[in-house]
């Protein structure tokens, strides 16, 4: 390394002397120049006033190569980002904006090697006041750093190894059938948190870390070893040094001497906590799935009137299993503007909410409804953590003392019908994602069942209405399959008119049963007639013909072409009609007879009267007397006929020359 020339140094000293007014720089520098510690003196502007050999050795650059900060920085800090950071620190330090005492940097030497360097910075003081010069000393800490790094790595590796250890071994020596010494393998730390020394110092530690309820099991296993029985691996819990409960599997391997005497045994302790957790989780899932399966099976063939109790059962099953406090169903109104809490299960001691949650407008819970409408689950592990936009929901849930909640949408087809909710009131509960999916399945099962119930009820209502109408009708209704001519249904009036039980009618072929038409001559399907209030005949169960007024309508019922026969019994009407006709005829006869007899009696009176007068005034031996008597007698006969005519009360006829005439004798009440 080339030293600065005398003149140059002279000039610089002069310059410094002028600037520093009496600082014995040379003396100072003599100290630093010989110093084995890499050192430089930097001015406020960044010029390197001094730069010793040790520094040149450290960096590989001479002062000529790096006369100031601006030349130095890019060389030893090639990374721009890192350099800018260092330059900023340097600038602030030189301008005394910050006080840098000691700091570590990575520099790149001229030969490209990287070194860890710790820079120390001192202000040069004159008469107790700093001047614009700073001494910078560098210590190569690369080796120390390497060692630190190695230690860290080794520690990490150790930790990884410890974490990976899932088992350790301990050996128990036996003398005279009694354990005398136990040696734990170092790996016990990883599993129990206790060191072999801990075990050595506390002879009861091994059993004390076993929770009381598992101790009998552990002792029994050791007893098996001593009684020279075959041992089986057992699973039990231990309480680690940090208080955490772990599951371990303990396997004991006994060793015997040549005489078959137990001299020692090894215990292999394996950490099975993860497996247990997985098993528990699996078990939980299996049980939950079983519950869902049982619910699903229950609902497959459920009767409409059992749906509500079925839902209550499902809510209870899930609620009890999941250990939550409340499970419930909300259903939206048809127009989705309100919702009702329709079903609820509460754990013991939990206040039911159902009565308060009726007719809730959906628009007051926008955050909630937005998620449900997107068919998203609502998962709230902590109600208190709900975001600001869910403040209404938060308030409402807190009013019900709810700490955690899960709600899954109940969907049917492409629409939201409601939701299934699970509240935790007593403590916070976190649900597993896959369990929530199972709840969702339950929600959909319930939604399907409820929709089916709704459809069935609507159908039943419509059927009931139809059946009520059919039962109330005063007309007989018989529904017939148009193709098979088989009777499908008959209403009570029809059954009464046919005169037998309904079950003896349904299923029969109508031909020759209730309809006189021959097979193949059905007036509707075969002869193409239409029948609208036509007078027809019905055959009743006794084979009697009943006069009916019948209308047949062709309809499709459940995809089947059917004939709806509606008819009324007109026997009485026919009889009444007949009677009316008789009465009308009788009236005609009576009017005729009245007129005839009245009109006839007048001339008859004259004829009979005068005949009688003549006879009165004629001697009895007069030959005319006999003839006059004949006239008189015939008039009397006619009088009898007119009397009969006047007393006609019935319509009676007799045959007369191929016609019917009134039978006066029979028709008259005075015959």
């Amino acid at each position, binding site marked *: 390394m080339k030293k600065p020339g005398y003149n140059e140094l002279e000039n610089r000293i002069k310059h410094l002397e002028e600037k520093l007014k009496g600082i014995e720089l040379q003396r100072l520098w003599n100290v630093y120049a010989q110093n084995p510690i890499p050192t430089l003196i930097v001015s406020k502007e960044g010029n390197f006033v001094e730069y010793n050999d040790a520094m040149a050795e450290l960096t590989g650059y001479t002062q000529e190569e790096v006369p100031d900060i601006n030349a130095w920085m890019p060389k030893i800090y090639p990374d721009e980002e890192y350099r800018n950071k260092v330059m900023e620190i340097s600038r602030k330090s030189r301008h005394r904006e910050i006080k840098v005492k000691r700091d570590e940097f990575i520099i790149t030497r001229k030969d490209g090697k990287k070194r860890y360097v710790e820079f120390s910075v001192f202000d040069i003081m004159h008469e107790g006041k700093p001047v614009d010069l700073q001494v910078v000393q560098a210590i190569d800490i690369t080796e120390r750093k390497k060692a630190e790094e190695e230690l860290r790595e080794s520690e990490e590796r150790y930790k990884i190894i410890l974490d990976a250890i899932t088992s350790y071994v301990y050996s128990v020596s036996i003398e005279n059938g009694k354990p005398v010494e136990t040696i734990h393998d170092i790996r016990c730390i990883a599993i129990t948190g206790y060191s072999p020394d801990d075990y050595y110092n506390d002879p009861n530690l091994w059993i004390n870390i076993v929770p009381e309820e598992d101790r009998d099991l552990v002792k029994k296993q050791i007893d098996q070893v001593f009684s020279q029985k075959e041992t089986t691996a057992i699973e039990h819990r231990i309480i680690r040094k940090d208080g955490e409960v772990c599951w371990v599997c303990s396997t004991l391997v006994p060793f015997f001497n040549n005489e078959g005497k137990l001299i020692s045994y090894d215990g292999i302790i394996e950490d099975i906590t993860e497996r247990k957790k997985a098993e528990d989780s699996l078990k939980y899932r299996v049980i939950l799935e079983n519950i869902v399966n049982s619910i699903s099976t229950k609902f497959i063939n459920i009767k409409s009137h059992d749906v509500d109790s079925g839902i209550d059962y499902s809510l209870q099953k899930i609620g009890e299993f999941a250990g939550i406090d409340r499970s419930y169903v909300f259903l939206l109104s048809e127009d989705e503007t309100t919702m009702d809490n329709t079903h609820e299960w509460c754990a013991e001691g939990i206040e039911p909410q159902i009565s308060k949650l009726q007719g809730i407008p959906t628009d007051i819970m926008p955050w909630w409804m937005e998620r449900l409408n997107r068919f998203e689950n609502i998962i709230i592990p902590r109600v208190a953590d709900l975001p600001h936009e869910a403040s209404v929901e938060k308030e409402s849930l807190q009013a019900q003392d709810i700490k955690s909640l899960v709600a899954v949408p109940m969907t049917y087809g492409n629409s939201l019908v409601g939701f299934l909710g699970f509240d935790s009131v007593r403590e916070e509960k976190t649900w597993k994602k896959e369990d929530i999916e199972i709840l969702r399945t339950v929600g959909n099962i319930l939604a399907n069942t409820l929709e089916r119930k709704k459809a069935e009820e609507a159908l039943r209502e419509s059927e009931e209405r139809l059946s009520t109408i059919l039962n109330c009708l005063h007309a007989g209704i018989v529904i017939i399959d148009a193709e098979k001519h088989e009777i499908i249904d008959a209403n009570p009036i029809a059954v009464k008119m046919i005169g037998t039980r309904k079950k003896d009618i349904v299923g029969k072929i109508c031909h020759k049963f209730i309809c006189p038409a021959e097979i193949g001559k059905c007036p509707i399907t075969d002869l193409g007639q239409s029948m609208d209030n036509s007078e027809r005949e019905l055959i009743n169960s006794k084979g009697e013909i009943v006069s009916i007024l019948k209308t047949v309508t062709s309809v499709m019922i459940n995809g089947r072409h059917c004939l709806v026969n509606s008819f009324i019994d007109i026997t009485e009407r026919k009889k009444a009609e007949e009677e009316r006709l008789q009465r009308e005829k009788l009236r005609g006869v009576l009017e005729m007879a009245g007129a005839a007899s009245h009109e006839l009696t007048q001339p008859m*009176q004259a004829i*009979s*009267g005068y005949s009688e007068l003549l006879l009165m005034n004629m001697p009895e031996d007069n030959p005319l007397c006999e003839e006059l008597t004949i006239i008189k007698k015939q008039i009397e006969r006619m009088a009898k006929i007119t009397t009969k005519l006047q007393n006609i009360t019935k319509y009676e006829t007799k045959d007369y020359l191929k016609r019917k005439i009134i039978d006066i004798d029979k028709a008259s009440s005075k015959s």
Partner: protein
Amino acid sequence: MSEKKILVVDDEKQNLMLFRDLFSNGGYTVWSAESGEEAIEILKKENIQVMFLDLNLPGMSGAELCRQIRQDNPIACIHAVTGYASDYELVNCRRAGFDDYFIKPVGLKLLLNAARDSFEKLERWKSN
């Protein structure tokens, strides 16, 4: 009693003639009318106690005529002669105030007997 008066009412002229001839021959003084109204006119002028009325008259019926006569004269013997008889008419005739009832064609002797009996009845009542 010097003069025995009989009133005959019938719209049938032949019959009216017959009854007039019959009762004239029987020694009675016969008044005849073809309608109820005509009969009432006659009765206003004449004191007639025995009557034979056809029931079927134009205008006022025989029964109505009888009812009117009965209002002023409860004693008179009034007979109905009708061409058309029924039980119903008989009841009506009695209600209207007729004493007896004959159906056409009626025997003349029956009528003469009825007239004679009527006058005998009236005589008997007077002497009481």
